[in-house]
């Protein structure tokens, strides 16, 4: 990251993402629609289900496939598993050590042994959910256009319940721990964007909603937002059409869909004094832990209501057209669009990950923190910069412990 004091009062902030380009949108061309969910999951090992579900939503919409209600439930449970795993990884292994002031979760064990052990159980449980429905936790294999390759038995899913119910009982301790962490603060206005699903706190599908405009269908995404390239980074940035940066992810979801959050999580939010809309990105760690509670509670309900579907998938015929699919990845909206020909092959693919959408917003946040960064010593500055970026849980290697801070003062 570089901060250049231009002497004009507005410092220039550049987050140089060194993530090498992998050209997914290019090599997806010519592939069959049925192959896409397995291919796109490889974009991110931390949120593969999000990639699979957004692509399925796109193709199933185009091909007019009615997916069985119980199969949808399976996909949602799988997705909750990914939220639990990904949020637990972020909150307890990446972000909390920052706030505690230690380098990693291992170092946290000495001070908070119970917390680390329980957080690992939580993460383990998220992985177990993913394995029970997807076959494995990283790049699951069970999802396909029209449904799933094989639906697990009621018994197999129910075997998750004892540990699930235990975690629902104990997660309050983890919430209390996260709530007690000392956090920096940064109150600022921001355009918040997330999905809205009338049926639930949006996760597997929905329309695109924002605090600055009406709800629009996924097909209007590219009319509302655009990607642009910057010279200093391999990751494309995003902005609202005609506007500036915007923010996707937990803070947006909490702010816009609070009433749909599970009542247990909502009550905990009230106890923490959190109410929508949230304006401080440093509070996103709190929302993530509340979303873990939400996901645990929703999973408990969904698993109990699950019945094995009459058939695992609905047959379909590919057809030509342009399609769009969205879902709420742990880090925010994940948008996919494909042009498909009559043979069911992809002719054009566009994928806009949440981290790309948040990038400009991260730079804006750091710009606002510059006075504090400039006042800190080198270590403090680096730590604050890392924390400001980590608020967005970017799913790239710089998600983690990365920052080389380059502060350039203006030449007199």
């Amino acid at each position, binding site marked *: 990251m570089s901060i250049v004091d231009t002497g004009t009062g507005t410092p220039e902030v550049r987050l140089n993402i*060194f993530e*090498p*380009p*992998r*050209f*997914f*949108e*290019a*090599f997806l*061309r010519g*592939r*069959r629609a049925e*192959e896409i969910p*397995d*291919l796109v999951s*490889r*974009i*991110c*090992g*931390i949120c*593969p289900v999000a990639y699979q579900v957004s692509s399925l939503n796109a193709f199933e919409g185009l091909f007019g496939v009615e997916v069985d209600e119980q199969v949808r439930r399976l996909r949602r449970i799988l997705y909750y598993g990914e939220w639990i795993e990904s949020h637990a*990884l972020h909150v307890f*292994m990446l972000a909390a*050590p*920052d706030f505690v002031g230690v*380098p*990693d*979760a*291992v*170092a946290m*064990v000495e001070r908070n042994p119970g917390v*680390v052990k329980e957080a*690992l*159980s939580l*993460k*383990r449980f998220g*992985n177990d959910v993913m394995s029970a429905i997807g*076959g*494995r*936790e*990283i*790049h699951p*294999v*069970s999802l*396909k256009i029209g449904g799933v*390759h*094989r639906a697990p038995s009621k018994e197999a899913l129910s075997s998750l319940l004892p540990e699930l119910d235990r975690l629902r009982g104990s997660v309050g301790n983890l919430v209390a721990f996260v709530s007690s962490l000392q956090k920096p603060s940064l109150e600022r206005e921001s355009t918040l964007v997330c999905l809205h699903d009338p049926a639930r706190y949006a996760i597997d599908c929905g329309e695109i909603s924002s605090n600055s405009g009406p709800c629009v269908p996924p097909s209007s995404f590219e009319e509302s937002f655009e990607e*642009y*390239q910057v*010279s200093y980074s*391999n990751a*494309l940035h995003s902005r609202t059409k005609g506007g500036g940066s915007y923010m996707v992810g937990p803070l947006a979801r909490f702010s816009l869909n609070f009433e749909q959050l599970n009542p247990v999580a909502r009550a905990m939010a009230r106890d923490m004094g959190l109410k929508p809309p949230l304006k401080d990105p440093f509070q996103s760690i709190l929302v993530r832990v509340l979303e873990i509670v939400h996901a645990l509670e929703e999973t408990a309900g969904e698993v109990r209501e699950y019945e094995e579907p009459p058939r*695992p998938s609905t047959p379909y015929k590919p057809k030509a057209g342009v399609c769009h699919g969205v879902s709420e990845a742990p880090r925010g909206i994940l948008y996919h669009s494909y042009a498909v020909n009559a043979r069911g092959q992809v002719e054009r693919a566009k994928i806009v990950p949440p981290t790309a959408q948040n990038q400009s917003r991260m730079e804006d946040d750091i710009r606002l923190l510059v006075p504090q960064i400039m006042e800190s010593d080198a270590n403090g500055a680096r730590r604050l910069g*890392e924390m400001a970026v980590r608020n967005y849980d970017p*799913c790239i*290697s710089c998600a*983690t*412990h*990365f920052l080389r801070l380059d502060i350039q003062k203006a030449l007199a």
Partner: protein
Amino acid sequence: MAKPRLGVFKFSSCDGCQLSILDAEEELLALLDKVELGDFLEASSASTGPPYDIALVEGSISTPEEAERIVRIRKESKTLVAIGACATSGGLQALRNWSILGLFESAVYPEPEVARAMEKALPVSDFATVDFELRGCPVSKAQLLQSLASVLRGAKPRLSTSSVCFECKRAGNACVLVAGGTPCLGPVTASGCGALCPSWSRGCYGCFGPSDDANLDSYTSWLTAHGIDRQTIALLLKGANSRSPEFRKWIEEND
């Protein structure tokens, strides 16, 4: 005695293979107790830097900077283990090696000249001597832990080199290919996943790359004789391991 120093390094990849280390929740703290973390950005901001006793390398080499960095890490490491399909054969992003980079760049970037990538995404072994390879997209957590345990004891890891079919038979699955007519790469793919896909009623798509005894010509002529066309076979092989020698040869000769 000083603990062996472990470095975990990411190149062009999805992070999934190094996440497998963090996914070993029960074993994680025990493992981290046995080593000193020299460098593992995904897990810790503490970093001792080189030299490393064990370097786990995830990802393919696909930019000039990465090519320099892997050579440096090799020099700094006693044992270098390539983990996952990207590191061992180039991974999915090596699908660009079948095309022309410029076309790919302009498909993704409005100003393609700014994105800096090499013509091809390549396995680690094209740049540095690799002591040991762990296959898979992602790697198997069990194979990863087993190999680390061996290396920590000074032994060379030994993994099964048989095909997925052996694991599948042991799992008691009905054959998805013979009984269900579903194209499956199990007979020519290395084991390690526990015959995951056939156990989930679908064909293997080759995450672990070719098995040692893979006979692509013989197997694919059986497939075509049973009504599975060459294009379907080529697409199956053009996955995460399309540049592994056996898969690559078949694609070059037949696609």
